[in-house]
């Protein structure tokens, strides 16, 4: 390998890493607010790309059905809870939150079917369509278990991934899609060729992580999110609603995942289940950050991207194994670097 190839691989790796950064940051955000390790997060990214691809070929995206199914289930569950607790007056609001709001982008998608929209509008619509997924999943799968242990929530999260990706097969079909490139421009910088697409990926990663950092560190919304993350009961006592905060966290994180999906769409052919591997690689990055530190997570995610691109140069068949086994030395390093602080779970019967 000469330096030219190494440079190429590094650029490629950084571009991949940028995608993982966005997903990994979202993962850490959701984990810190809700204690849920949201495994289906990569799926959200892949669904955004598939949604955009469907819009571009003038097909009604499978997301419409997926959102419909989830919204219906969430509303039914909410209605049953409200009826049981005799809080019938709150039914209209549940109807609005769980059926009408998620259905709005769907209605937009159906109304705009048949028109050729500009790329920016299509991308926005794709993002809007995907946004309700994570909060609805939260309502259906995780809220009934809000007080369960991290382990229990993780088992549910893995199960949710398989349920969602199985349903995605029904709605999106088994074919792979690739979206239209956002820009075909190519730059020559210091002897290396860099496509506008790669630049866009890196810039988006920087911009959105910066935005997340600012929201989290310097706004009242960020403060309430952090308060919920530190202590749910305490946050409740000062008037913060943990359920609303988790919805905010899921929406915020979904934007990150959605953007990464839009960016990856033109460079890789995605299938209904591609999100899993993408999400898991982002996880490796998040674990490097110990699921707490945002800057370390970003560094870790880029490292995973670079490792992946070099691994695929040396052995394209074993690259997945190399990336996932890389986790083991990382974990050994973490277990030596940070002493254990046990979560004192109450006995679960």
């Amino acid at each position: 390998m000469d330096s030219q190839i190494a440079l190429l691989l590094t650029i490629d790796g950084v571009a991949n890493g940028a995608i993982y950064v966005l997903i990994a940051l979202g993962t850490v955000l959701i984990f810190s607010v809700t204690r849920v390790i949201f495994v289906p997060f990569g799926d959200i990214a892949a669904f955004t790309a598939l949604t955009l691809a469907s819009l571009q070929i003038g097909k009604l995206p499978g997301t419409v059905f997926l959102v419909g199914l989830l919204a219906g289930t969430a509303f039914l569950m909410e209605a049953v809870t409200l009826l049981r607790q005799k809080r019938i007056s709150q039914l209209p609001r549940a109807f609005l939150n769980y059926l009408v709001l998620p259905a709005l982008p769907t209605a937009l998608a159906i109304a705009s079917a048949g028109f050729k929209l500009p790329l920016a509008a299509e991308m926005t619509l794709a993002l809007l369509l995907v946004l309700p997924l994570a909060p609805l999943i939260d309502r259906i799968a995780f809220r009934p278990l809000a007080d369960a242990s991290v382990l229990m929530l993780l088992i549910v999260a893995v199960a949710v991934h398989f349920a969602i990706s199985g349903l995605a097969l029904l709605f999106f079909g088994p074919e792979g899609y690739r979206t239209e490139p956002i820009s075909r421009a190519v730059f020559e910088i210091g002897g290396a060729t860099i496509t506008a697409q790669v630049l866009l990926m890196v810039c988006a990663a920087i911009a959105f992580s910066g935005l997340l950092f600012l929201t989290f560190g310097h706004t009242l919304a960020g403060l309430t999110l952090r308060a919920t993350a530190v202590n749910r009961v305490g946050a409740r006592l000062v008037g913060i609603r943990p359920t609303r905060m988790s919805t905010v966290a899921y929406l915020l994180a979904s934007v990150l995942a959605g953007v990464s999906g839009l960016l990856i769409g033109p460079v890789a052919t995605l299938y209904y289940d591609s999100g899993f591997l993408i999400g898991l690689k982002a996880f490796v990055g998040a674990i490097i950050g110990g699921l707490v530190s945002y800057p370390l997570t970003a560094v870790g995610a880029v490292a995973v991207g670079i490792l992946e691109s070099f691994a695929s140069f040396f052995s394209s068949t074993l690259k997945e194994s190399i990336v996932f086994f890389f986790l083991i030395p990382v974990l050994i390093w973490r277990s030596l670097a940070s002493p254990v602080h046990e979560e004192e779970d109450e006995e679960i019967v």
Partner: protein
Amino acid sequence: MRLSVERALLAVSVLGLALAPLVAPPFSITLLNYIGISALVALGLVLITGVGGLTSFGQAALVGVGAYTSAWATTAGGLSPWLGLALALAATGTTAWLLGAATLRLQGHFLPLSTIAWGIGIYFLFANIPGLGQHDGLRNVPAISVFGYSLASNGAIFYLIWIIVGVALRLTSNLLSSRQGRAIRGLRGGATMLASLGVNLYRIRLVIFVIAALLAATAGWLYVHMNRYVSPSPFEIRPSIEFLLMAMVGGASSIFGAVIGAATVVLLKDRLQDVLPYVSKNAAQLEIVVFSVLLIVLLQHARGGVVSLFRRWVPATPAMPRSAAEGLSRRTLPPAGTPLLEVAGVLRRFGGLVAVNDVSFAMATGEILGLIGPNGAGKSTMFNLITGALPSNAGRIVFLGTDVTRLRQDRIAALGVARTFQHVKLRPAMTLLDNVLLGTYVRTRAGFLAGALHLDRDEEARATSEAMRQLDRVGLAAQALHLAGTLPLGNQRVLEVARALAADPVLIVLDEPAAGLRLPEKEALAKLLRSLRADGISILLVEHDMEFVMGLVDRLVVMDFGTKLAEGAPAAVRANARVQEAYLGGVA
């Protein structure tokens, strides 16, 4: 032998299984074989997830390591399948040991997360290594033979599978009722308490993780020599979810739940394969949707699984274990007046707050030392520093001549320090007797193998007699087989004292033992503590009830805002102006 519903059910199942190959159609036997093999994997998951609170999403990959090792050794290497089994166990055990060593010191969720990653990693290895046949797998794997009799037919290997399942269930059940088994059952519900009893949690977790892997390897070995062929797809992450579902359906904390769960899932899968093709042409992918939704619903609404439903009909009746005439041998206590504990310049910060600031004091054996001070004075933090539950930022703590400042909690416990907690830490779902038996952990030796093979019966009987003696001493012997969670709070505190005594300590550290006790109970406790002092046991206690403290202790150390305010005999401390100011506010 005790006649019970459980024993009757067990006898009927064993008889049914023994006769099955004679009467049942071949397809049912194939299903039963799959149930038995899956039950082995599920049993491992019950042990680690249900009982131990760890989990693995890569269990199918471990099955695969076992299956591929034996398949490769018997085809490419031409070895006998029995040697294949030995290699499969060694390879899988080593893999699990390495992965466990890397993750088990970290917080609970890092292990399962990494299992997803390496589960996929191993799968891609199987699928891409040319020597393992890549996606085509390995063919012509030989059948197992026993004394020259080939187990090539499904009906013949059936007996081998179910004998192994029976043995595995028996060994696991033995293990869980042994010394190490109590520690395993105690894993869920916080680490501090177990470590304070001398349990090395990391080691226990590592061992059960490896045990689960060995069960998976055995299942993989049976699977590959039954099918005579191996390919990567049964070892990816989806089947791992099915195994987890099996463990949960049966009831995650019951070992028989593994068999019930395996049967339910295998049979359901068989039915789904008939029905789903009518719904969609992608039936295989839909199967996992059904299983995933089932798993979520189960975790939301019936975490106890099938076994807990059965328990509603037939409640478990814990039997009194055999108890020996003689208890465990006691340690020789150092003579009264020996320097016991020396705390020198100890400091502990929590962020900006200095909870314990440069505190020094010493105590000798045979003494009752009281540590008092207003709320937030740093008393409980001091206790946590002495027992090793928290590391100190500066200073030195010496116990009986050993520097314990940097020692792990379980090592300090082994030196003879036992404690109780301000917020009671018991295992509410275990009996009083089991809770106190946990206290004897540090005095007993039986390992995992001895427990599983029932070689520990003498020691167990003596430990039981010791635990009963301590329960009797605190007046709870009559309730020995009740669950600890059913006791009122005051009695729970007393139970903690009995557990601490069961460790035969040199020093017993009591954090507010009289809180929540009524007057006669307080008097009984004071009497007990005095009799302990008479036996030569040293006592360090934090307590807010001044009447209780003043009448009991030899000396007092007073703390306020993290620093030591005064030290001396009760009367002198009571007269100290600074102490009065701290407790009653300034006079001027």
